[in-house]
């Protein structure tokens, strides 16, 4: 053949380079586009999206900056943000949990947003995310982890809302009638739901994964030491006891925590925030009025696992445009409709707003003022995981939290039947190993 291999490959390589060039150019240009803000939001409820659309249109009218939205959803947002950063095209704004955003802060990806906080009214101490002396998060809302129970079923058995571990175990046992009805739900899998349950119950029993070492000025793993180990074992054993009154739930994630409850297969469940109530109202309204919040029972402390959501601005992006947008968003009159998109679930970060007539002026909130009062009563008790072990931001929580290690612990205890002590030892060893790799 007249065409030799070398010239063919050369020609193809040139064609390939030509095909790739626009991609590279687009990537370079994107960060410099001052007329655009890419906003990745975890909240993808249609009502919330309608509010975004309205505010974004007003923002464009006022500043000429276009806001491009992405809604990857709760389960995929961390992956989406990670891939955008890895591709060299970081978004300007990410709205999601500050705990997830901490991963970005640790890699110096988040801009200092102290000026935006100042301009928009500041934030409560337990909602701030401070890294290298600067605020990295603009909190908008928060959610506590707490339980929900069927008041009608409890009353029929002469039971009140459980307040102690013993009460809850007794109630779960009394109401347990499998497979028609289970007393409670203890998901036991390497999933986010299982992880959060154990992390919450650890808080209720004052169990710490890490302890602050003042000499090293760093955190050490203490889960398998002294009192911590004793309490961790006690917590695992307690959840193992509760698991007897739960569906096996070894595949459970967030959806099942709600669907098992609203299909009347469980007398109690739990969730982060009140989406469970929202879903019960939507899917089985006849049990909605009897669906009442309660504190997941405490042993030693009444701390609540706190998830704080907010705006996070990426350092290597159109920071000015992003700051303008966030300030505009938080001062926009439609902000209240955004909070009302999932009423009582997206709880304002500001207690003042929670108690305002404007916020409470919504039929669901008006009907369920008991939920609002419950939330107000626990307002100061929330602790984000990254401040649970000490006043300093704990940079290591991702080593167990991101990988659902607490979920693994529950599954190892409840599904595999491992001894609690062995589970605790193995979990602590895993975290230490990962710490070594990180360091």
């Amino acid at each position, binding site marked *: *053949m*007249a*065409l030799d291999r070398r*010239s*063919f490959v050369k*020609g*193809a390589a040139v*064609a*390939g380079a030509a*095909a*790739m060039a626009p991609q590279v150019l687009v990537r370079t240009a994107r960060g410099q586009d001052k007329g655009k803000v890419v906003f990745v939001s975890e909240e993808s409820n249609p009502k919330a999206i309608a509010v975004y659309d309205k505010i974004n249109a007003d923002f464009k009218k006022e500043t000429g900056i276009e806001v491009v939205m992405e809604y990857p959803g709760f389960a995929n947002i*961390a*992956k989406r*943000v*990670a*891939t955008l*950063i*890895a*591709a*060299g095209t970081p978004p300007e704004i990410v709205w999601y949990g500050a705990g997830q955003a901490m*991963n*970005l802060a*640790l*890699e*110096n*990806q988040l801009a200092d947003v102290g000026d935006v906080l100042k301009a928009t009214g500041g934030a409560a101490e337990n909602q701030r995310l401070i890294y290298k002396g600067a605020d990295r998060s603009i909190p908008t809302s928060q959610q506590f982890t707490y339980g929900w129970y069927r008041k009608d079923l409890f009353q029929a058995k002469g039971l009140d809302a459980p307040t102690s571990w013993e009460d809850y175990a007794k109630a779960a046992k009394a109401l347990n009638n*499998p*497979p028609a009805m289970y007393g409670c739900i203890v998901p036991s*899998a*390497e*999933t986010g739901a299982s992880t959060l349950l154990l992390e919450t119950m650890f808080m209720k029993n004052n169990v710490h994964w890490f302890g602050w070492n003042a000499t090293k000025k760093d955190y050490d793993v203490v889960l398998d030491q002294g009192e911590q180990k004793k309490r961790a074992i006690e917590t695992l054993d307690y959840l193992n006891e509760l698991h007897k009154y739960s*569906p*096996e*739930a*070894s*595949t459970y994630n967030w959806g099942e925590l709600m669907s*098992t409850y609203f*299909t009347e*297969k469980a007398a109690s469940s739990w969730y982060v925030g009140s989406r469970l109530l929202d879903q019960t109202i939507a899917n089985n309204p006849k049990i909605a009025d009897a669906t009442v919040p309660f504190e997941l029972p405490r042993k030693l402390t009444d701390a609540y696992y706190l998830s704080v959501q907010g705006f996070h601005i990426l350092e290597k992006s159109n920071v000015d445009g992003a700051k303008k947008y966030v300030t505009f968003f938080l001062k926009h009159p439609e902000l209240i409709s955004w909070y009302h998109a999932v009423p009582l679930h997206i709880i304002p970060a500001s207690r003042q707003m929670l108690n305002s007539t404007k916020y409470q002026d919504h039929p669901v909130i008006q009907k369920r003022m008991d939920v609002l009062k419950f939330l107000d009563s626990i307002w100061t008790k929330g602790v984000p995981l990254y401040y649970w072990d000490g006043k300093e931001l704990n940079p290591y929580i*991702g080593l167990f939290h*991101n*990988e*659902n290690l607490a979920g*693994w612990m529950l*599954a*190892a205890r409840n*599904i*595999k039947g491992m001894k609690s002590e062995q589970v605790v030892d193995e979990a602590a060893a895993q975290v230490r190993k990962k710490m070594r*790799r990180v360091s």
Partner: protein
Amino acid sequence: MNPRAERRVWVLGTTGPALVFLVVVAYLPIAYAVALSFFKKTAFNPAMKWTGLDNYRFILEEPELWNAFGRSVVFTVGSVGLQLALGLVAALLLNRAFRGLNLVRSLFVLPYLLPSVVVALVFQWLLSPEYGVINQVLIQTGLVARPINFFGGLGTAMWAVIGMAGWQYGSFATLLILARLQAINPKLYEAAAVSGAGPLRAFWDVTLPALRTTLLVIALLRGIWMFNKFDSIWLVTHGGPLKHTETLPLYAYRLAFEEFDFGLAAAACSVMFVVLLGGAVIYFKLFDPTREIEVGR
């Protein structure tokens, strides 16, 4: 333009785009993944730090990699075996004339046409411990007292996943085997019958040798696809419970998108690539499919 140059332009113009496409969508990502495996790169920072063989050392020392590899082998052998068995039985049933044959054949092909997410949802509904039909039947017939958590039980999850994959992809085997069955010369069966062979003997001496090549090709193709299978398993178990269905692709995914360590994930993918390459080389050495196809004609 002289004819030689013209021919050069013609060849480049016609094959170049396809080659560029192949390079961009297949070879560049492979090369990038292999290169990435020598760097430390977290998902939240585009900066890459050269670490040499550290990622390989780390994952090769991890029992998790070998456990995942073992599960990949179990899943691949189990699901491909089931696909071959189901495919063979279905093809033999469909290789005869009866009323409604075309409709039945279409129904047999249907599972292969369904998206994995649909199949996963159907199996989740069928096997759900709370509201699944299978559990309802088992409980109502008194075979079990409490529902079986098929996808969530330590002893059942892998078998449930294998069963689902076998059902979905068995149709592929059915199609190929049926096509081969219809190409077998009927005179061979007549000769076997004249020699006194019953149906079983005819199957053993005529059908099976004729299907040998097809079965090997199915085993190779489906073996590679099943070894790389991610979606079906991820959709129903996420690799659980307690990693009992975490095969190599899921392990690599976990490293990348739960531990956010792209370097380690790339190393795991490279190991997977080498394993498959090794498997393919062994297959070609042992079975020489080119020769088999020649013989099969």
